[in-house]
């Protein structure tokens, strides 16, 4: 489904590569976790795959498409950005109608898709309230719906559960599992390693723009000495030092 070959990205003016000679293959219907410390290059990798930025070198294909077919590619994938990307002054419904329209959806079909998703994510009561009045968890859920109305075959989620309570998190994860059952390939980043351990079919641990380990969560845990969970694996591989740099 996704084939990445020798992909590298160095931002203009940056000293180091944010993604460096990265090779990765993700199969159809996988739930793939990209894990790594702050600044590891997770968002950069997703941005590359979504054609938000251009690679410095290397290539990738998604379902056979490259960034040279931007409109087909964009129709095929969905991106849930790390930051909220909604109009605070518009209601949930208005936001979703607008972004749905950008994927060419309209009329009754669009309406029913919106109300279905809103129902499942428990926001029916707030459909006609302005997003500016929503809590963080509610915004996260709307932010998610805005990216899946066109039923993407590949869904990228950049920390979809950051800053939400356990209830919201469970609803979101359940919903993603539902989408996955319906056929969506999911690539997701997170700092919640317990969540990733349960949710992902496979994970990759990234640091300094390179993949340092990948496999099924249980596989990684049993391969690492003295590791009881993914967090132990993570710390063993990436060390305890803070990763603050800009």
């Amino acid at each position, binding site marked *: 489904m996704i084939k990445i070959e020798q992909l590298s990205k160095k931002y203009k003016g940056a000293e180091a590569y944010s993604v460096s000679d990265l090779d990765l293959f993700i199969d159809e219907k996988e739930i793939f976790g990209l894990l790594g410390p702050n600044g590891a290059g997770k968002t950069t990798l997703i941005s590359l795959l979504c054609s*938000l930025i251009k690679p410095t070198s290397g290539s990738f294909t998604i379902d056979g498409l490259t960034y040279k077919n*931007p409109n087909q590619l964009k129709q095929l994938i969905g991106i849930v950005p790390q930051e909220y*990307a*909604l109009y605070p*002054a518009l209601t949930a419904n208005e936001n979703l109608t607008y972004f749905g329209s950008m994927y060419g959806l309209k009329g009754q079909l669009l309406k029913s898709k919106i109300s279905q998703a809103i129902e499942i994510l428990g926001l029916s009561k707030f459909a006609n309230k302005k997003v500016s009045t929503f809590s963080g968890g509610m915004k996260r859920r709307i932010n998610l719906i805005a990216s899946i109305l066109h039923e993407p075959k590949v869904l990228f989620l950049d920390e979809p559960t950051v800053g939400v309570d356990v209830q919201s998190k469970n609803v979101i994860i359940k919903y993603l599992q539902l989408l996955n059952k319906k056929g969506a390939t999911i690539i997701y980043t997170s700092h919640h390693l317990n969540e990733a351990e349960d949710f992902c079919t496979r994970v990759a641990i990234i640091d300094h723009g390179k993949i340092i380990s990948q496999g099924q969560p249980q596989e990684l845990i049993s391969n690492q000495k003295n590791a009881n969970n993914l967090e132990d694996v993570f710390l063993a591989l990436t060390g305890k030092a803070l990763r603050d740099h800009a």
Partner: protein
Amino acid sequence: MHKLWASTYKEFLLLTRDIGGIAILFIMPIVLIITITIIQDSSFKTISDTKIPILLVNNDNGRVSETIISSLTASNTFQVIQKDKEQEARDLVFKGNYQLAIIIPEKLSSDLDKKVNQNVEGILSKFRLEEEEKEIQPEETILSKEVRLYFDPATQLTFKSSVKNGIDKMISKIETQSIYKAFHEQVSEDDTEVIFETDNFISFKEIVPKQGDKEIIPNSAQHNVPAWTLFAIFFIIVPLSINIVKEKNQGTFVRLRTNPVSYAIVLGGKTTVYLAVCLIQFTLMLAIGVFLFPKLGLPTLDVSGRIFNLFIVAFFAGLAAIGLGLLLGTVAKTQEQSAPFGATFVVILAALGGVWVPVFVMPKFMQLLSNISPMNWGLNAFYDVFLRNASFIELVPEIILLLLFFIITALISIVYNEKKNAV
């Protein structure tokens, strides 16, 4: 097409969510246009209900000073307050209590008469040389006189120069009349006999363009409404650029870039809505000029027979303004950049375009710059319609310029956006 429509509807919703913003968008231009027209109208009017108080020190107390005072009073512009001391009048004016003090020098009347008589006598004596050889008296030399003017330093130059012109004219007239009078006295014994016609021989009459058999007499409304409407239309670049910058900052713009929709369509939605805003603004301002101005005692804006052409000009001027707004919004990173820049830039464009000072009095270099100010094209087109009674065909060059300006600014925005995002 559906995406463009959805984008337009979204912009419409965003705009209506900010009621305060809309109110400002529509009310401020109206306040602007009413204020400016009232101010300008009173300075154009000859019979104004407010008279400007000025000071006058009369050291002459003769015929000439009498004439000056009476014509100043008769002009209805000034209220003449007499003071005794030059010192006092000067201080009051320099402190800003009065705009102007006129000091009439001592013996102005008698010296003027003497001087004129001397001259007349001199001329006449040339004719009488043979008849009687008068003994030549050594002539008393009479120094020329000056009427002194004191202006408040804060007085505008235009007011100053119009006052100076007026006084200059008054003095010339008095001098001419004195000369005529002196000749009269020398030549004729009978004071009532008419030898000279003292009325002006050369006069002037302004011929104005006609619409049918009706003369188009420009009034301050015909001048102000188009100029300030255009100014208001261009102010659209401030809210429009803020809208775009906001979109970048709140992340929706990144989302749109991941959607299968082009930047051109996103901008298209904004263009449609903000163009509608421009046209509503324009309609309101015309309505104010036509219906409210007469009620305020201001000259009525005459739009008869030109509504269509006016809206054509407003449409294209609006487009040009929006193009500028799109570009500013695309280039600016923060609202702190776009808002003050936008506002100041509009004022500069307006100045260059001739909203305050007519283009023909500007220095050559500024005139060149003025030619590339879209506000100038718009203003010319409006004046063509309002004052020169132009037909649609005559507007085409200006309209094309405005349209080109929109196309070019929009294209630059799109290209710039591509370039900037290709990180």
